[in-house]
């Protein structure tokens, strides 16, 4: 994947397939610690312990349309190739947590890329499921919670073009603000 934000979009699709109703995405960037960490946590149906052992193996997948499962394997390879680590934990019936950690200045670390487009594409695919997104960059924080947006608008789905356009701008501006050098 050319951008870390594409990995994020990809991995959250697993959460939707696992019937999650809430997906929590946290991105932590720290220049001081020279680290970038992505955590995706959902309340989907979870993965059985024996499957968890081999989940990041590209020849393991639960899908039926093809025989390889590349999403988690690619994310794992990306993190491990940047002096980082990959971790997946899951409890059946409770949810799954995926973590990818990168050395921020590693030459092979892909750029984070277009988070606004990733968030909008995620929200479109989520249906009634919700997203809590927190992005920390050098002590500055940006938060977006789709539950709050739905409550304000009195709707159950955000899959309307005017709402999606607003979300895209909101994320774009919010991230520009926290990433400004101060």
């Amino acid at each position, binding site marked *: 994947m050319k951008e870390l934000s*594409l990995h994020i*979009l990809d991995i959250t699709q697993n959460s939707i397939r696992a019937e999650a109703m809430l997906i929590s995405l946290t991105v932590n960037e720290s220049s001081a610690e020279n680290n970038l960490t992505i955590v995706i946590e959902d309340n989907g149906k979870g993965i059985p312990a024996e499957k968890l052992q081999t989940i990041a193996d590209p020849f393991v997948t639960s899908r039926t349309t093809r025989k390889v499962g590349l999403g988690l394997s690619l994310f794992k390879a990306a993190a491990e190739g940047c002096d980082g680590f990959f971790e997946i934990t899951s409890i059946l019936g409770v949810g799954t947590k995926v973590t990818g950690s990168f050395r921020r200045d590693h030459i092979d670390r892909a750029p984070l890329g277009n988070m606004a487009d990733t968030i909008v594409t995620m929200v479109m695919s989520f249906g009634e499921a919700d997203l809590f997104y927190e992005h920390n960059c050098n002590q500055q924080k940006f*938060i977006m919670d789709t539950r*709050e947006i739905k409550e*304000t608008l009195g709707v159950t789905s955000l899959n309307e073009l005017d709402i999606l356009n607003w979300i895209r701008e909101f994320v774009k501006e919010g991230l520009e603000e926290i990433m400004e050098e101060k």
Partner: protein
Amino acid sequence: MAKSLAELKAIREKKIDEIQLRHGKDGYRVVVGMATCGIASGARPVMIKLMEEVDTKGLVDVTVAQTGCIGSCRLEPIVEVYNAKGEKVTYVHMTPEKVTRVVDEHLALGKVVEEYTMTVVDGKIIDPNVKG
């Protein structure tokens, strides 16, 4: 977040009539494959372009949605267009530039853009580029 949310609410109230129109059942349903294969080959910019074009061209009865892997990963990004009868046209190797033409010709005028479609011969998928 509070201030900006109020602003979204205002935009929304202005557009409420249009939103009600949007739920007509006669329009096209457009589906983009959004699994690892699609995402890696550029499905996200295709999706975003589709969203923008449908919005700016005011195609209120078109709905845009996503699906997982369709099973023809080498032809991704794949866009499927369903009409009101449920008949499907499959566009392959899509790009944001191709999306503009599909929106202008297929979604707005009902004219299929043949050269971007997938063709099936004897149960085998033929890539339009090698059709000859």
